[in-house]
């Protein structure tokens, strides 16, 4: 553990951009956990007399058309957006790497079926597919998670399959077989940990996509429903007011969304270096 901490310190000090991304990620997590207590106002409390106010010290991000505090809403929305992204990515990572590893390890029919299924998923425009899934299953947070997980599945399956098939014949896998390990055990203890570094890059990229996807679904009205605070809905609601000059309604949630995606994309290399043992000395 101490070793890992030292290694983490090295990776972060070597690359200030990664360190910045990790710092921002920590901030996002803190906001997601403690958001409702940090937010200065109730994100759902409307106040018609105070609607569409430009940013002031009392309301740093201004207020929306119902007089709700945009700052509080942006903070509180972190939990929902991050929650959707993390659970969707976790789901597709677990299922995708299980499928991909088996495809790469056993090859043959397993490989063909997994390969063709992910081809089929990828043949659809992914966002349209997600729309279809949500529209068919119903408008709920779980369904957004499932939809986002399904469209991200093929990426994990493919990376896992390729990395596994490269290592299937590696010396240490043969050695484990000679040491009496069964296929499943070798896959779990020898192969899978070694494909983690490229998977980590995939995870961080996907987190960005997943957040965008969730926000996008909400934006077109197929996701989280108003009045819940969610970045996508807030941008959607604010979009109509940009023309009339109330720019803060869409700008701040949009910026939060952008920063989050940006942060996840920058974290990729750092995550990979963290889980790569050969980067340790």
């Amino acid at each position, binding site marked *: 553990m101490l070793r890992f901490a030292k290694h983490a310190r090295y990776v972060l000090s070597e690359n200030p951009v990664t360190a910045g991304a990790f710092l921002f990620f920590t901030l996002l997590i803190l906001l997601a956990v403690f958001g409702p207590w940090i937010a200065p106002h109730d994100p759902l409390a409307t106040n018609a007399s105070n609607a569409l106010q430009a940013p002031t010290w009392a309301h740093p991000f201004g207020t929306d058309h119902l007089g709700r505090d945009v700052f509080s809403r942006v903070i509180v929305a972190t939990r929902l957006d991050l929650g959707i992204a993390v659970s969707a990515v976790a789901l597709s990572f677990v299922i995708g790497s299980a499928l991909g590893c088996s495809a790469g390890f056993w090859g043959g029919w397993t490989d063909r079926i997994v390969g063709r299924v992910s081809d089929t998923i990828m043949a659809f425009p992914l966002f349209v597919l997600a729309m279809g899934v949500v529209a068919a299953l119903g408008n709920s947070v779980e369904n957004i998670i499932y939809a986002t997980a399904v469209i991200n599945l093929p990426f994990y399956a493919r990376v896992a399959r390729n990395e596994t098939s490269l290592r299937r014949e590696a*010396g*240490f896998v043969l050695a484990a077989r*000679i*040491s*009496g390990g*069964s296929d499943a055990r070798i896959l779990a203890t*020898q192969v899978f*940990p070694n494909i983690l570094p490229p998977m980590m890059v995939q995870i961080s990229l996907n987190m960005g996509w997943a957040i965008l996807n969730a926000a996008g679904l909400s934006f077109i009205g197929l996701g989280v429903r108003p009045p819940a605070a969610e970045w996508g809905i807030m941008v959607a609601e604010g979009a109509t007011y940009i023309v009339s000059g109330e720019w803060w309604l869409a700008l701040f949630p949009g910026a939060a969304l952008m920063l989050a995606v940006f942060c996840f994309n920058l974290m990729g290399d750092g995550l990979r270096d963290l889980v790569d*043992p*050969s980067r340790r000395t």
Partner: protein
Amino acid sequence: MAPRPILTVDGLSVEFRTRNGTVRALESVDLTVAKGEVLGIVGESGSGKSVTAYTVIGLLDKAGRPVAGSAEYDGVPLIGTREKDLADLRGREISMIFQNPRAALNPIRPVGKQIEDVLLRHNQATRQDAKEKAIAMLEKVRIVDPPLRYWSYPYELSGGMCQRVMIAIALACNPRLLIADEPTTGLDVTTQKATMDLVQELTRASGMSVILITHDLGMAAAYCDRIVVMRKGEIVEAAPVAQLFADPKHPYTQKLIAASPGPNSKLSDLTAVPDEMEDAAPVQAPDAPPVRVMPPSRAPLMEVTNLVKEFPRRDAKSVWPWQKSETADTVFRAVDDISFSLSRGESLGLVGESGCGKSTTSSIVTRLLDPTAGSVFFDGEDITAFRAAKFARLPQRRKIQMVFQDPTDSLNPRFSSADSISDPLRRMVGLSGAALTKRVEELSDMVGLPRHLLTRFPHQLSGGQKARVGIARAIAADPMLLVLDEPTSALDVSVQAVVLQLLDRLKQELGMSYIFVSHDLNVVRLLCERVIVMNKGKIVETGTAEDVLTRPQQDYTKTLIAAIPQLDPARWRPPQTAAAPVPKAAE
């Protein structure tokens, strides 16, 4: 001395920036190459021999930086020169042949086009006659049917042919200095000989100077005029070949020569102690188990009868599945009806060039692969009766273990040494807790691996230490048969000597039988009592190691033995210790 040397390197030092500060890779290296001279740079991995070449030719890695000294090519300074001028010089005046020809060639461009590129870049040909000249070059390096091969892609050519194409590219512009960086690593002995003979012939014909970088003393002796021995970034000795081998001045050179197995040396002659082990724990720790020397009995341990392994051919003629073609066309017989037997405590060498079926045979014997036909009786039981996938869970599994060719590849990068060694103990012996720790420590003592290295990960260990971990893992479950698949081919000569001695000692202590798979007859002879020579899946010759090596009966065996760049000890000095090669050829 010759009038003016073509290349002069004077006090060259190179530093590399790494995570733990800067590291000196070269420490004031001086060397000269005269016109028409073949200079050998010899040293073990990490000695800085390649760094020297790369610095001179201006291809040094970004992290490396020459900090002192100079290099001049025919009066032109090479260090600190603009990249554009260097690029002009490279290829036209100085050329290089790289270690891995397949990786050095562009995989998506026909080889003929790649020769043309060099010619056009240095204005040695016009667009009109480039193709003609490229074909002439291919002919010069003796590629059969050059007009056809002009259009070949690197993947269509064998390793030896790729290296010929590399030579054609390097010599296309008639350079005056050729740098060959381990040009035959990964090639078979016979191919190695053919390649080196070709280089020698072509460079001699045009009076070209050559720098031959190699770890192989035998090859350096056979092809060089003068040899520079490097160690840890410094030149320890430079002398003409005859003088170097007759009277090595520096202890390191002596050590290197002593560690190289020659055609007459015995295992006990190889008395090298690699640096990494000098301060290591004693080989026999006080609490190590008592040595029990087992008398080799002649009871048969393993009987292989009519073994056949066929693989489907990729280039089978039938394009569509419903087009049935002859079986002979669609399958490739990697192992073609071989039979042999192995006694208890005996060690058997399996020798041949790449593709001869020796690795396939060893995979079948270790039950990683199912044979197409034939059977393997082990300790009275037909072990081929069980499918390879099932074999892992049978009790017989622990009796047959294996040491792999590449110690780096065969250790899980995420497992510490202790984890790697305990894996078979957990799985097959069922040890855990304190008993497991104790046994792992015992094993590490047995193979001479210092105990403090047990917590390290493979990338923190040297090649020799990784080899020891691999051996400890293989003997962990007390096997009766150990299959050694080129266990030393990725190691430096001095480490190889130590590992061979270790294997020999373990065999006597534990009474194991060995099947030693190798392409290197000199190494096989040291460890094996009996040798089987294989070619194209068949057994060509079999007999005691001594007989096969000194009185080969078959032509194939004779070619194989002749191809090893042997040092004639009498040529340089009377005593029996002589340097000879350890040609490496990765399977």
